């Protein structure tokens, strides 16, 4: 990866914008419910989780109302899982472009990761509503959210690029992606708080970069919660490393995309 590579990415920034614009436009044009999908998915998952895990299984939520507890994590999770599956399938879905035109290939999975941010924004409005309902005063730490979103984006882009590149070569990756996402949901403190995990297994939680990020999303929302800076730092570093690995791997394999897709 040399300077020319990045210079070219910069030169094609408008294409990048147009891909995001296309994804968003097409998604809202083709659905009856349009933008409300962005809310329906995390909101109803939250209701189901609240019923089964919060009420029936009596999952502890560190004193936070369980709906708020789960929704504040489901919001970034819904974005992350959507970005992962969109990015993972993006190259194969745009195969006709890859074989007919040259442009920096990275724009495809990258734009697929970005276009989900609009849904995130829409679903965020519901979170604000919930905070009013539960009378939770937002604090200054909510300003951490943009940084957290960026970290989440970098992680999603990194994993997304790896999955997308693998998907070109191995067609069964398509079937592996939903499975990976499902497992990841349970390995991340979304349904449960990190606090219920015994101390000796905490390290394992920290290996999953999503844990620190999601816990930080939650903690920066609720005034009574402390942000675990160490864990967030580890997670961010991991996210950055995965992103770098994703870029390098993608760049190494992209020359052969058009031949094998």
């Amino acid at each position, binding site marked *: 990866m040399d300077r020319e590579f990045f210079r070219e990415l910069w030169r094609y920034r408008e294409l990048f914008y147009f891909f995001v614009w296309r994804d968003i436009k097409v998604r809202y044009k083709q659905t009856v419910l349009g933008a409300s999908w962005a809310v329906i998915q995390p909101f109803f998952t939250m209701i189901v989780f609240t019923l089964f895990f919060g009420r029936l299984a009596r999952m502890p939520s560190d004193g936070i109302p369980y709906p708020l507890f789960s929704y504040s994590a489901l919001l970034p999770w819904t974005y992350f899982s959507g970005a992962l599956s969109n990015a993972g399938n993006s190259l194969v879905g745009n195969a006709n472009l890859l074989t007919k035109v040259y442009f920096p290939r990275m724009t495809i999975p990258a734009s697929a990761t970005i276009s989900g941010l609009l849904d995130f924004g829409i679903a965020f409005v519901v979170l604000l509503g919930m905070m009013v309902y539960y009378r939770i005063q937002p604090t200054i730490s909510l300003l951490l959210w943009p940084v957290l979103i960026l970290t989440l984006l970098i992680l999603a882009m990194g994993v997304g690029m790896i999955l997308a590149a693998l998907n070109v*070569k191995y067609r069964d990756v398509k079937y592996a992606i939903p499975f990976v996402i499902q497992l990841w949901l349970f390995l991340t403190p979304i349904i449960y708080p990190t606090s219920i995990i015994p101390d000796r297994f905490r390290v394992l939680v920290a290996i999953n970069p999503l844990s620190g990020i999601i816990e930080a999303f939650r903690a920066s929302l609720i005034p009574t919660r402390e942000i675990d800076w160490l864990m967030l730092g580890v997670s961010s570093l991991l996210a950055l490393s995965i992103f770098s690995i994703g870029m390098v791997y993608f760049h190494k394999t992209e*020359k052969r995309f058009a031949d094998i897709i």
Partner: protein
Amino acid sequence: MPHSITVDKLSKQYQIGELHGQTQLRDALIDFIKRPLMKRKLHTVWALQDVTFEVKQGEVLGIIGRNGAGKSTLLKVLSKITYPTSGTVNVSGRVASLLEVGTGFHEELTGRENIYLNGSILGMTKREINDRLDQIVAFADVATFIDTPIKRYSSGMRLRLGFSVAAHLDADVLLVDEVLAVGDAEFQKKCLKAMDDLSGSGRTVLLVSHNMLAVENLCPRTIWVDKGSIRQDGATSHIIKEYMSTFTRLEKCASDLSKIEDRRGTGNIQFTGIEYLTSDKRPKQLVRSGDSFIVRLHYRVHENTNRPHFGLEIYTELGVLVTEVSTWAARYDIDHLPRGCGYIDVNFDFVNLMPARYYLTLWIASVGRPDYDILEHCAVLDIEPSDVYNSGRGIDSRHGTVFFPCHWHLNAP
């Protein structure tokens, strides 16, 4: 003048099966576990081998060759879609490749939205598209539908829109693959004119086409690609004649077609031979302008076939279709052909072709089914001069492709 494109000893190898590669991660893992130290054996094929040429800035270069000769692979390497296995390629300036019309069009988006999307995919900036939007819309002739999703467009409109965007690209090097083969005659003319304007504007253009007329008109120089290598490189009219002459192995008035490998179709019925006969069914050594003669097509039926149709196309030396005759057009319906051999005669009562060399393409097909056999340019028809007007002055190919019997009548004051 500086070189715009330099290609040096370019080779490109594909792995067979790779193009439809349904490699499974599972298989790769199993393979790795079974034989961790051994590389998987892969069959390879060279799509391009040792290709070297240069194109000057502002030059318009034609690229011709048969299907699968490597023309498209060459354009793909030049446009960086695929990478060379060995050798170097150097293209200076902004490159725009047009390997397909309307790449990236999305059905749900409107014409206007697709102009922006397609334009940016082809490398235009938003400002450039803004500036040229009106011209693009006008050229494509879709102004009334510009805010309608293109899923409601006819295929012709879609094509026009796609070409129009491409025609307004502002690139130093334009790589075009066979986009002129589509669309109605009117639109093709428009495209040719646009291409002509483009080539006059100092841009370097590489044009891959089967339309020999287009190549002849647009490109002073042509490269003939054959089996992945450059077979000839030079003045277009010369190259086209050489190229067309390889299509045929006809000796005098009869030829064996059964051994031709370069054929398409299912093979249910295949041509086995072609003969030129006089009207009393004797071999015709010489066909002259104004003659009557018979083309006898021998065939072999491998599988019983219902309602087949036979067709014959006549092309000029530059690849322009003069005419097509077929049993379908003539409503000469054949109910059923049993297995075995046979022949069908086409009686030409009057050949009004100017003296020149012509090429024949033969086909057998049924309506609504895959073609049975297509032999492109499989035979030569040499038309010799004759005194068709009984004037003692004769005619020749400088006066056109066909002649029309006529009488003159002067009414002087």
